[in-house]
């Protein structure tokens, strides 16, 4: 059974289409693996095993009649911030603990149309606000490589389940690094597409100018397959861009000779950068050169301002987006007798500490008297950050950077200090500010824990990003799944 849960999506596709295995077998193997390991890892908020079994049987019938898409019969998981009609969507918040969406997110509908198999809804920091899943209102997910450490976040359930072999691929969302950073901490592949590449319809909104949905997988090829399945224009999301979806898998030629790859000095000089992480990333740069790519120094002088810019822009947008949780239409409702007191009571009890912090921070930045000094200032610095990347990417095809300055930290180590927690995203935020695609891929180990490298590209340059990441992966082949034995976690 272990064999089936360690397959790549591409290999499972071959075996499913060749009738060597069935989707029911593949799905049962994953359900058994989840039942064996998720007591320790705690990646799933809502398992969907009954639905999964029915979907697998339908997928087998489709395959038998010769209808097979990239994800037909493939067991996948969904971050619990993506709306689904057949399971609750909680955003890991007490506010939406019992929320049942009347519609599917577009990415969910697209995967459903391909007859992918949904194993369940995955843990996240509440409303995707966090870097460790410790802000989930329900429980903290553990890192499969070391159960005392965080899996990263916010999409920590999505990354941990893929590393633990509890799903072949998952979807997450990335507002400031929430796909790439947890992928890095769990040693798997995580792809944040270009802003506008994937529809955000049915993704519970955090920061609308930054949010983007993307896949977690154990190989770059699998990420290309999943991106192909979810990308494209959607009339229900006016920020999705009508750009043709290329055959991403065809981009994986393995050949990057002559590719121009930018290396930014600014990233090596960040305070708090672990030496083991820096060493692994620098060895990876050398590997790209050995594969025939040309390493070119690029300058991204405003990099250090990305974090403070983000912590104005994202909370400002969040404070507006989360105004909808008023206890009137859906979600938690605490009736305190009159309209105003009911708002205070509902929102005071429904939101956790980090969500309250960000709503407060955003409200402050947008408030009369502070608006120009904070919000408008951040928007202007965002222009400069984007300009840095636009300039650099005129000269190079992709840019390499560490995914995070550290390996996965211990549960509880940063939960009392918001600013320290925010620093985990220092390398991932610029791509969101500039709307660019980025993939996190394993690039070695430090202190026995995975280290991750980012490959960033120009807008709608996923083809270059995937090709470069794939060539490196083929040359290195770092393990993406730890050895796991059930019952190892403490109480």
């Amino acid at each position, binding site marked *: 059974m272990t064999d089936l849960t360690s397959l790549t999506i591409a290999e499972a596709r071959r075996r499913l289409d060749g009738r060597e295995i069935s989707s029911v077998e593949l799905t049962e193997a994953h359900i058994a693996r989840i039942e064996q390991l998720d007591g320790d890892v705690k990646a799933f908020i809502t398992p969907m095993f009954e639905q999964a079994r029915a979907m697998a049987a339908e997928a087998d019938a489709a395959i038998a009649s010769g209808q097979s898409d990239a994800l037909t019969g493939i067991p996948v998981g969904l971050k619990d911030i993506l709306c689904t009609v057949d399971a609750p969507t909680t955003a890991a918040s007490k506010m939406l603990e019992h929320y*049942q969406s009347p519609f599917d997110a577009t990415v969910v509908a697209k995967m459903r149309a391909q007859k992918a198999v949904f194993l369940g809804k995955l843990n996240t920091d509440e409303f995707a606000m966090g870097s460790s899943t410790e802000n989930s209102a329900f429980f903290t997910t553990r890192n499969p490589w070391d159960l005392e450490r965080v899996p990263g976040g916010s999409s920590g359930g999505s990354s941990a389940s893929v590393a633990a072999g509890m799903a072949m691929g998952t979807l997450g969302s990335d507002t400031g690094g929430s796909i790439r950073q947890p992928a890095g901490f769990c040693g798997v592949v995580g792809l944040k597409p270009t802003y506008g590449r994937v529809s955000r319809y049915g993704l519970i909104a955090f920061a609308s100018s930054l949010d983007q949905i993307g896949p977690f997988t154990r190989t770059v090829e699998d990420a290309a397959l999943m991106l192909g399945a979810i990308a494209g224009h959607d009339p229900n999301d006016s920020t999705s861009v009508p750009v043709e979806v290329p055959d991403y898998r065809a981009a994986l030629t393995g050949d990057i000779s002559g590719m121009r790859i930018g290396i930014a000095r600014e990233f090596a000089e960040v305070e708090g950068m672990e030496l083991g992480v820096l060493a692994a990333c620098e060895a990876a740069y050398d590997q790209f050169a050995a594969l025939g790519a040309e390493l070119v120094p690029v300058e991204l002088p405003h990099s250090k301002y990305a974090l403070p810019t983000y912590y104005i822009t994202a909370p400002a947008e969040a404070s507006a987006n989360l105004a909808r949780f008023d206890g*009137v239409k*859906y979600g938690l409702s605490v009736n305190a007798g009159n309209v105003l007191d009911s708002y205070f009571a509902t929102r005071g*009890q429904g939101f956790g500490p980090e969500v309250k*912090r960000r709503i407060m921070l955003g409200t402050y930045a947008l408030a009369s008297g502070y608006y120009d000094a904070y919000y408008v200032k951040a928007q*202007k610095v965002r222009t400069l950050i984007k300009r840095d990347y636009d300039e650099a990417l005129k000269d190079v095809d992709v840019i390499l950077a560490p995914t995070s300055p550290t390996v996965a930290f211990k549960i509880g180590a940063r939960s009392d200090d918001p600013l320290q927690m925010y620093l985990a995203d220092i390398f991932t935020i610029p791509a969101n500010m500039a709307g660019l695609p980025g993939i996190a891929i394993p690039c070695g180990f430090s202190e026995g824990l995975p280290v991750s490298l980012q490959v960033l590209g120009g807008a709608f340059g996923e083809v270059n990003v995937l090709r470069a990441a794939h060539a490196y992966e083929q040359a290195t082949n770092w393990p993406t799944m730890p050895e796991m034995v059930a019952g190892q976690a403490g109480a």
Partner: protein
Amino acid sequence: MRLELETVEHIAALARVGLTPEEMERMRDQLSAVLDHISMLQEVDTDDIAPTAQVIQQHNVMRDDVVRPSLPREQVLLNAPDQEDGYLRVNAVLDQS
């Protein structure tokens, strides 16, 4: 710089978030620390720089004004905290006294 407690109370009121006195004090410290970090933006010269609100080049995305079905009322009301005769039931908005 430490925020005044009155400022934190004012912001919480604007945000419609009920906070206990302990939460209010903790928020005061944590917001002050984050705002201190953010203040480094003031050193950036942005005099002739236009603000960026979003990064895609599309503006005023329009669609044809065609009638199409919306979600069924029962389905939408399924999540309603309180309802009556197919409507959301809310507290009185206007003072009746």
